[in-house]
């Protein structure tokens, strides 16, 4: 594998409901099956990725769920604890200070603190050599929907600007270097053939490029419907109202796919289509198949 899948940190985002988790899980499965030690991260998402992959729930501790594939659901409190302990090293002091009700209250006020410690955990793993304890060859981060994703990714830059010095700025500095290095990090933007998701993808691509300097590695149009019926086919169906209606509805979806592709081409990144799958419940088999499509297209 080369190209996009060589990036050590893959960020997956898009509008709510477009299939971000499906894409993230497919990618992670594919990377792991290629022998790369892979970490799949969700952000405080209620741990549903594990279920999708047929594993028990994984919480805020990094857990190996199958050969080469580890998972974690980042949670603000657990990440905070881990971060603070890495700084002060004394469990006793942590408990006395950070588990105090009033301190917890103040911490909620601190702009970007929850985001800093969660993103910091991902970046810490990225910083380790792949062979070192806690190190991974690849990290796939299943980000929240557009707005929250931009907030999360914008945290290091915001901190570097707002607080030129101090402990949070130091952390933010190296995180920013990793996030904006196109050799290390790339974002995959997931979209659907509908107006609003495409609007969001375009806005997101612009914000990543101009505001955050994060490389957009690919745009993924999920649930694509390729055209199947031409004019001659439609003509052959005259006098067959049920089939005519079927073809018309199908081709309307195909037209929407074309329209979305047309608009998404304005993003300067490879455009990958994932097919619309009709199954009662997405399972591992579908994720493997989608992973193959992604790997092939992003080679």
């Amino acid at each position, binding site marked *: 594998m080369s190209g996009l899948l060589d990036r050590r940190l893959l960020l997956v985002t898009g*509008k*709510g*409901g477009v299939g971000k988790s499906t894409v993230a899980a497919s990618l992670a499965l594919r990377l792991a099956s290629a022998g790369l030690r892979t970490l799949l991260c969700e952000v*405080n*998402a*209620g741990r549903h990725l594990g279920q999708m992959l047929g594993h028990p729930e994984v919480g805020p501790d990094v857990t190996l769920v199958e050969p080469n594939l580890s998972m974690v659901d980042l949670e603000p409190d657990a990440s905070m604890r881990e*971060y*603070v302990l890495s700084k*002060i090293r004394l469990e006793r*002091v942590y408990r*006395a*200070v950070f588990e*105090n*009700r*009033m*301190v917890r*209250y*103040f*911490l*909620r*006020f*601190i*702009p*970007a*603190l929850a985001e800093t410690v969660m993103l910091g955990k991902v970046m810490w793993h990225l910083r380790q050599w792949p062979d070192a304890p806690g190190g991974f060859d690849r990290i796939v981060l299943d980000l*929240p*929907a557009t707005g929250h994703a931009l*907030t999360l990714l914008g945290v290091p830059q915001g901190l570097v600007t*707002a*607080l030129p010095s*101090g*402990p*949070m700025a130091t952390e933010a500095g190296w995180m920013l270097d990793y996030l904006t290095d196109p050799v290390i990090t790339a974002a995959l933007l997931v979209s*659907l053939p*509908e*107006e*609003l998701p495409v*609007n969001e993808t375009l806005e997101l691509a612009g914000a990543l490029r101009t505001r955050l300097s994060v490389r957009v590695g690919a745009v993924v149009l999920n649930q694509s419907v390729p055209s*199947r*019926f031409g004019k001659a*086919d439609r003509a*052959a*169906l005259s006098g*067959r*109202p*049920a*089939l005519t*209606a*079927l*073809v*018309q*509805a*199908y081709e*309307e979806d195909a037209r*929407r796919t074309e329209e979305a592709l047309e608009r998404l081409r304005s993003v300067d990144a490879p455009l990958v289509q994932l097919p619309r799958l*009709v*199954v*009662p*419940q*997405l399972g591992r088999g579908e994720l493997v198949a989608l992973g193959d499509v992604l790997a092939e297209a992003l080679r």
Partner: protein
Amino acid sequence: MSAPSLEEVLRTRRVLVCVGAGGVGKTTLAAALAMRAAALGRSALVCTIDPARRLANALGLTWLGNAPTEVRPDVLAGAGITLAAPLQAMMLDLKASWDELIERQAPPGQRERILQNRFYQTLSTVLAGSQEYIALERLGQLRERSEVELIVLDTPPTAHALDFLDAPARILDFLDNEAARWLLDPALRASRLSLRLARWGGGVAARTIGRIIGGDTLEELATFLSAVSGMNEGFRQRARSVRALLSSPETGFILVAGASPERREEALGFEAVLGDRGLQRDGVVVNRVQEEPPASAESELAGLEEPLRGTLVRTLAETRALAERDRESVRVLREGMAPAPLIAVPRFSSEIHDLGALWRAGSYLLGEAVIL
């Protein structure tokens, strides 16, 4: 006693809140509900958060107004729609609503200090629940001031269903709890707050926190808290009245769900949350349900040649599989949501962006047309 039909709901409620995950079509259905209420003779306002541009244009919302605008009768007539009462629409600008709230409630000398403070930026944009809070707060304000008989609120997409209903409590807790009161002891002047923080716990606590987040940040926080402290009573009152409005018998919730299995689970989770809080569930709308192709489709295949025939067989099988999946979702949701009425709205062949399409969606909502 059976639950009232959606028509009954549109005739009686004063507020309807459309809830559900992002991307299921809440905005469109909120607009269709308001339009039908107006058709039934009740003046209605649909309050949207982030409508598709074409839908916004169709409703005549060409700029982010943050104030109600009437959907022009001649535009409606152009789409063949005559309403018995006026229909208004507005787009909520959440950030502007926060700024307006501060401008209204803050002591004059403090306004600029608050609006410029970094903590205010967090409070008004990224703090969990703040968007939901301001949407509800604006709803309360509109309900007090607006003459319209029904307000239909489209809600911001929530990552976690709970955020929405807990928003007033969380914001209040944020501004007004034991810790804040301790910090803001009136005997202390603002300039000495950071001193008090520094001394707290013999200085160990403040030093430790300072090592993690920086000492300047603590000081800035103290300044912010003292600036907003005068507003707490105002916030408390507003949050109380918003909570009262949500649980009032005049207010109902419409749960909008998608038909895919993942969306179905989200909807069931949300239903449980509404139920736990004793909120009035007026209906469940499953949007974009695939209709079953007629049985005659298979017999129409006779006499067609390959490869067209094969492609049709495949397309027909996929469509039937999708319809089957959606029918199962509707069945599960109907069971899980009873006794609230469940309404299936079909996938239309194009996105609903014009007034005529909104009207057609409305005919399913009112039971004039039915699938499943």
